[in-house]
């Protein structure tokens, strides 16, 4: 067992980080916002924490918290102009924001440009990653059962009816964006500190698609679903090694299958049984 864990420790770390990313998107999706900015928030925090660790000597915890804070601040600013957008338009605007963030990262001298930023201390151990995941998971679970959690669900179901019962929908949408940014930020810092090296391309639309796929497959509005989706999609490429270059087809086929036959994702399937 121990052997298995140490052989696959990189994969296990990846699962943990992806689970955090999927959770971060699920927060916005639970409010009904297709705000596809998590990869960008991940990147912002990754760079802030890396530059801070390398140039200013921050330790892991400080670097991660400050990175997440930076992401949260950007989210707060972003929430204002996109406040009125819904659906596809919101998705596109946040994708656009993600591209702008990536381009800034390529061009800002302090980030090392397109070649990436290296020399990041490799101090984000598996323990750190899963401790963070546990804290975030428990926090989201408790939140989901609280009054605020109900406000989020109501906003997703019917914004106008939600306003009609006194819910400040704009605040809910901004709050979920910021909360998602914090979680994605933590994931970004942990990602940076478990690889020596990050590039702007790590945090672009490709990553955002991956996160969205994980959430949808696991089940869009459930924390357990997000984690399940992350687990499945992270280990899947290893399981289908035998497909070689055709590996991606399995991911796409699963996503399509879920959308067509089980739109509430794996978590939804589980709920239907019990």
């Amino acid at each position, binding site marked *: 067992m121990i052997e298995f864990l140490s052989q696959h420790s990189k994969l296990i770390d990846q699962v943990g980080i992806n689970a955090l990313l999927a959770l971060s998107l699920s927060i916005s999706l639970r409010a009904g916002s297709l705000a596809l900015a998590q990869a960008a928030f991940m990147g912002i925090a990754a760079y802030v924490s890396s530059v801070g660790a390398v140039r200013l000597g921050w330790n892991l915890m400080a670097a991660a918290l400050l990175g997440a804070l930076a992401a949260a601040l950007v989210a707060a600013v972003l929430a204002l102009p996109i406040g009125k957008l819904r*659906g596809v338009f919101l998705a596109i605007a946040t*994708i*656009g924001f993600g591209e*702008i963030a990536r381009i800034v990262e390529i061009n800002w001298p302090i980030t090392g440009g397109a070649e990436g930023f290296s020399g990041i201390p490799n101090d984000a151990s598996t323990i750190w990653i899963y401790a963070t995941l546990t804290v975030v998971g428990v926090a989201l679970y408790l939140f989901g059962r609280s009054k605020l959690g109900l406000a989020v669900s109501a906003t997703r179901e019917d*914004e106008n009816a939600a306003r009609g019962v006194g819910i400040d929908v704009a605040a809910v949408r901004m709050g979920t964006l910021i909360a998602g940014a914090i979680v994605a930020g933590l994931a970004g810092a942990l990602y940076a500190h478990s690889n020596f090296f990050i590039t702007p391309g790590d945090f672009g639309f*490709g990553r955002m*698609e991956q996160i969205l796929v994980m959430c949808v497959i696991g089940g869009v509005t459930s924390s357990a679903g997000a984690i399940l989706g992350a687990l499945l999609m992270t280990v899947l490429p290893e399981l289908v090694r035998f497909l070689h270059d055709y590996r*991606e087809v399995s991911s*796409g086929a699963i996503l399509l299958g879920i959308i*067509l036959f089980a739109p509430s994702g794996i978590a939804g399937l589980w709920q239907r049984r019990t």
Partner: protein
Amino acid sequence: MLIQQLANGLFLGAVYALFAIGYTLIFGVLDILNLAHAAIFMLAAFVALSLVGAGLPLVLAFALALVFAGFLGVLLDRVAFAPLRRRNAGTLVPLISSIGAAIIMQGVARGIWGPDEHRFPSSALSTSEIHLGGVTVGALDLLILAIALAMMGVLSYVLRSTPLGRAIRAVAADRVAAAILGVDIERTIALTFFIASALGGAAGILIGLQYNSVSLEMGSRIELKGLAIIILGGMGSVTGAVIGAFILGAVETLSIAYISSSYRDAIAFGVMFLILVLRPTGLLGKRALRAA
């Protein structure tokens, strides 16, 4: 010099336009953002490449690959979108379905052609140049421009003056009313996908020829730019997509020449973001912002 840059921008804009038209046609008719459009764009280029490699003349390869792209689009609709229409799934679910289809197509392409960049055999391409009053253009570029403009012209004619075109516009305006008026909705949608995907495929082949490069990444590079173009032009408006594409083509080539190229792409996305926030209908979009 400025005119030279504008000429280059014209060629780029023409191909962007072909791609963007397909994107916006599908959105106009179905309210779906089809993220598999870029994958068809890429696959058509690869298919044309293989056909040329097998010895077919370029013109024939182009035509066959176009038809392939069209049918692939129809298949895409049958598998990924039509079942969702039947169960009234809204507009965000098909978006995700299109991502699934795109991933499958990427996987197949990677499996068949591998991850490396491919080039057209040099015998297929002409490198001759023409000089027109101080401006130098490649014969290939002119051909590409001509083909692109011809296709846009045909599309315009179809949309304006044929029963199919009227059907497409009717379904785009109001699907229920169109059905009441006797339009065969499913057939119209299938034909829209054929046309849109064929145009997107044509764009892929032409860009592949223009830069003499066909790779797995070409789809993702243009996909997001296509988004910016159709937002600028107004989602659902074909004319808007064309105008937006030429504007983007001009801005891109001019900014390489006169401003640093590194922030070039940021301009497109910055403009797109501003438009979404200030005037979501874009330049010519006929749809008001709809709450999903």
